[in-house]
C-alpha cells in the first residue's frame, strides 16, 4: 500500500511520503517476474537497489501485501533455506499473478501517461 521515496540524501523515515497507493503490488509483481523466486527481504532489497534508493518499501506493509496477494492467487509461497542457511519464506508468481502484472502494468502506463499529459499542459 505504501512505498516511501527517499530524497537523494534523505534518510528513511525523515522524509516519508505516502505515494501512489497500489504501486506496491505492481512493484512486487514486477520484482518477482524478473527475479523468479524471492523471499520478502530480497524483494525489498531489490526494489531499493533497482530504484537507485529512490523507492523503499515500508516493511510494515510488505508482508500484509504479500499475504493478500497470495490469497488472491497471484503468488504462491513455500518455506526454503537461504544461502546464509536461514529459514525463509520464498514467493513466486503464479499464472494468475502474471496476468495481474500485465494488467497493472497497462494501467500504470495509462496513469503515468495521463499524469504526464496534465503536467505537460501549458
Amino acid at each position, binding site marked *: 500500500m505504501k512505498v516511501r521515496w527517499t530524497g537523494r540524501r534523505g534518510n*528513511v523515515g525523515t522524509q516519508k511520503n505516502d505515494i501512489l497507493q497500489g504501486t506496491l503490488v505492481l512493484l512486487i509483481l514486477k520484482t518477482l517476474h524478473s527475479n523468479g523466486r524471492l*523471499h*520478502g*527481504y530480497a524483494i525489498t532489497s531489490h526494489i531499493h537497489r533497482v530504484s537507485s534508493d529512490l523507492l523503499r518499501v515500508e*516493511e*510494515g506493509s510488505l*508482508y*500484509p501485501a504479500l*499475504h*493478500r496477494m497470495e*490469497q*488472491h*492467487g497471484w503468488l504462491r509461497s513455500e518455506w526454503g533455506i*537461504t544461502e*546464509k542457511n*536461514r*529459514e*525463509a*519464506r520464498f514467493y513466486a508468481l503464479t499464472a494468475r499473478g502474471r496476468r495481474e502484472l500485465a494488467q497493472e502494468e497497462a494501467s500504470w502506463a495509462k496513469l503515468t501517461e495521463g499524469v504526464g499529459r496534465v503536467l505537460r499542459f501549458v
Partner: protein
Amino acid sequence: MTWMRRLWNALRPGKVERDIDRELAFHVAERADELRAGGVSADEAVRDARRQLGNFVVQRERARDVNVSAWLDALLRNIRLAARTLIRTPAFSASVIVTLALGIGANGAVFSAIDAILLRPLPFHDADRLVRLSEIRTASAFTNIVPVRLDDWNRLNTTFEAISGYFTDDVVDTTSDLPERIRRAVVTPGFFDVLRIAPERGRRFTEAEHQFGSAPAILLSERLWRARGADPAAPGTTIRSAGMPVTIVGVMPMFPFADPSVDVWAPMPVNAPYAQSRAGGGWFTGIGRLKPGVTLEQAREDLKSVQARLAMQFPDTDRDVAVRIEPLKETVVGGARRSLWLVFGAVSVLLLIACTNIAALLLSRATQREHEVSVRFALGASRTAVCGQLLAEAGVLGLAGAALGVPVALAAARVIQGLAPDLPRLDEVTIGARSLLYTTAAAAVVAILCGLMPAVRGARGGKSLSRSGGGGAQVVPRHSVQWLLVGVQVALSVALAAGAALLLRTSDALSRVEQGFDASRVLTLHVTGRFGEDGGDYGRVVQRINATLDAIVALPGVRAAATTTMLPGIPGGQQQEFHLVEGRAGMEARLIAESRTVSPSYFDTMGIPLLSGELCRRPGDASGVTEVMVNRSFADRYFPGRSIVGLHLAASTPDRITGIVGDARELGSDRDPVPTVYSCFSAAIPVPWFLVRTDGDPLSAAGAIRVRLKQLEPFRPVYDIAPLERQIADAYSQSHMRTVLLTLFAVTALGLVSAGVYGTLSYAVSLRRREVALHLALGALRRTVVQRLLGTTLRVVGMGCAGGLILALMFTHSLSAMLYGVSPSDPATLAGVIAIVVVVAATAALIPAARAAFVQPMRVLRED
C-alpha cells in the same frame, strides 16, 4: 480454491500466526545483518530492525486475512442474534423445534432402518459375492438340494470359489438333568470358508470330522456358549446329545444367519450311505461364493450347463432339475424392501409437510417483522446481511430440531423394531454415524427449505420505512405465498392420507374375510424330535406323535388336537402335481394343488367343515399316507360335476380320496383359497406343529399340556408355545407396521394441516382487522364475513385437494401389491379422505373466522 484456503486459515489461526512470526523473524535477522555490516552495534542493529518493521502484533493482525474472520464473525453474530430472537418467542420456537424434531427424528429412524437392512452389505467379507442356490423342480415346490447334487455343482462349476450347504434340525441336549432342545445347523465342508467366518475360540471341523462314522463334533454358537456360563475352557469338553457324548471343538461368533435361532453347528458326513441318492427331495439350502469379477449371469449360465451335463448323465433324476441363484442379501432382505421404502416415502412426505408448515410460519413472522427489517435496511444493512440473518434463524431452528431429533430417532427405531419383529437384520439397526450424518443433512435441507423463501422475501421487503409504518391507509397484501404453502400441505396430506386409508381399508377387508377356519382359542407348540431318533425306526416316531396327540386331547379344557406340517393362515405353501389313478382325459388341466400333510383331527380342530364323504383315518404305522382329503376348490376346479370320493390321487403313492372339506385360507387371509390336497398323516415329519383347540384362553392350557407331556416323556422338551392368532399376526407384522405407521403419519399430517390453516388464516385476519371492522361498521353481516373468510380458505383447500388427488393417484399405484379388497384408485376411499381433509381444514378455519366476525367494529377503528 483461494476461498477455501482463506477459510482454512481463518479456522486455524495458530498455524498462520506461527508462520508469520517465523517470516518476520527472518526479516529482522536479515535487516540486522545489514545494519551491522554498516557499522551499527549488534544490539542496536536488532532494535533498529525491529523498529523499522513496526509492531509485531499489528503486523500479524494485518497479515492475517480479515475478510474471512469478518465473515465468520458475521455468521456467529447472526446465530447469536437468531438464538436471542427465537428465545424471545418461546412458544413459536418450541412448537417449530418440536415439529422438526419429530419429523427429522422419524425420518432418521426410518433411514437408519433402511440403511442397516437394505443398503449396507451383509456383515460378511465381500458379502456381495455370496449367493443362495436352490434346486427347482417342476413337480415340487421344495427347493432344497440333494447332497450329491450339491457336491456335483461344487466340483463341476468354474465360476464359484466354493458352494456349500446346510440344513437345520432340532436335537435334545441331555447334558444336564433337564433335557433341552437345541437348534442345530448341519453344514457341508467349506461352509465357513464360503461365509469367511472363523470360530471365535477353538477350531473348525476337520476333514475327518466330515467323514461318516467319525467321532461326533460340534461348534457352539456364542449365544449358547454365553448362556452356559461362557466357559473359556469349553472347547474340548463334551455335551451329551441323544445319550451320545459330542465333543465341542469351538465357539462360533454370532452372525446373521438365515435361521438366527441356531445354537450349534455340526459337520455333515459327506460319504454317509443315506446321503448318496440323487432321487427324492433335497436337504440343503445352498450358499456359494462367486469368484471375484464373476457376474450373477455368468454364474447362472455356468451352473445351467453343469446341470445340463448332469441331466445327460442321470436322466432319471436330474432331467427336471434347474438351478436358481439369487444374491444372498436379496433372499434375506428382499421381503422387507417394499414396506421400508413405503414407510420412508411416507415419513419424508410428512417431513415435507412439516417444512412447508414452518416455512409459512416463518413467512408470517418475517412479514410481522417487516418494520424491523426496514430499520435494518435504513441503517445500511445489505440485502445479503438481512437474508443471512433470516436464514440463520431457520438454521438455528433446524439444528435444534435435529439435535432433539436424535433421541426421537432412537425412540422411533425402537417403535419400528417393536412393530415389525420379523424384519430381517433388525438387530443391526442402530443410530450410528451414517444416521447422524443423514439427520444433519436432513436438518440442513429442512432449514433451507423452511428458511429460503421467507429469507428472500423478507430481504426483498422493507424498501421504505413508511410502508410498514402501520398508518391508517395500510394496503393489505394478499399473502398468496402463505396460501400457496397451505395448498401444498393440503395436497401432500391428501396423498399421504389416501395411502393410509387404502391400507386401513385393506386390513379391514382382511379382518372381515371368511377364513374358512377358526384361529381363535388354538394353541400351537412343537415337541422335540428328529429324523433318525429311536435308532431310525420311524414307526416308533409315528406312535410317539399319536400318543402325544391322544394325551393332549384327554386333558380337561382341550376340545381337539391335531398336527400339521405347516400352520394355517401363514404365507408360504407347497404346490405339487397330482395324478388321478383312475385316469382323466388327456386334455384336462394338470392337477396342481397345494399339498399339506395333517392329522385327521385337523379339520375338527380348525373348524373346517366336512362337505361330503367321510373323514380320513389315522394310519397306524410308518407306512405313511394312504388317505387324502381335498377341498372344495380342488373338486370344483378339476372335477366339476364328478364325484371323486373313493377315487385315488397319486403324487408318489396312490391315496384314496375319502372326503371333501370346505375351503380355508391356508396361505393367509389375503390369498384366496387354492385347490388343496390334505394328506392324512400325523407324523409326516418328526417335529410337526401341534394345534390344540381349548375351551378358554389357549395360553392358560399351556401349563397343563406341559405337565402332561413331561409325564409322558420327561426327556422331550416342548417349545414354541403360542396362540395361533399371534403366530398369524407375527407373520403379518410388516403389513401391520405399514398400516400403523402410515395412519400415524397421516393423522400427524392432518394435525399439521389444521395448524397451518389456522395459523395462516389467523394471521391474514389479524392484518385485515380494520378492513373487516369497516365492513361491519358499514352494515355487513357477521355471517357474510365468516362465509367470505371460510370461502377463501376452502378455495385454497379445494385446490390443494385437487392437487393431492393427482398425487394420490400417481402414488397409490405403487401400493397395489399391498392392498386387498380395495383398488388403488378406489373412489369411495379417495372421496372419504378428501371429505376428512376438508372438514379438518374448515374446522381449523372456523375459529379465526369467527373471531374476526365478532370484533367490535368501533373499538377496532378507534385503535390507532
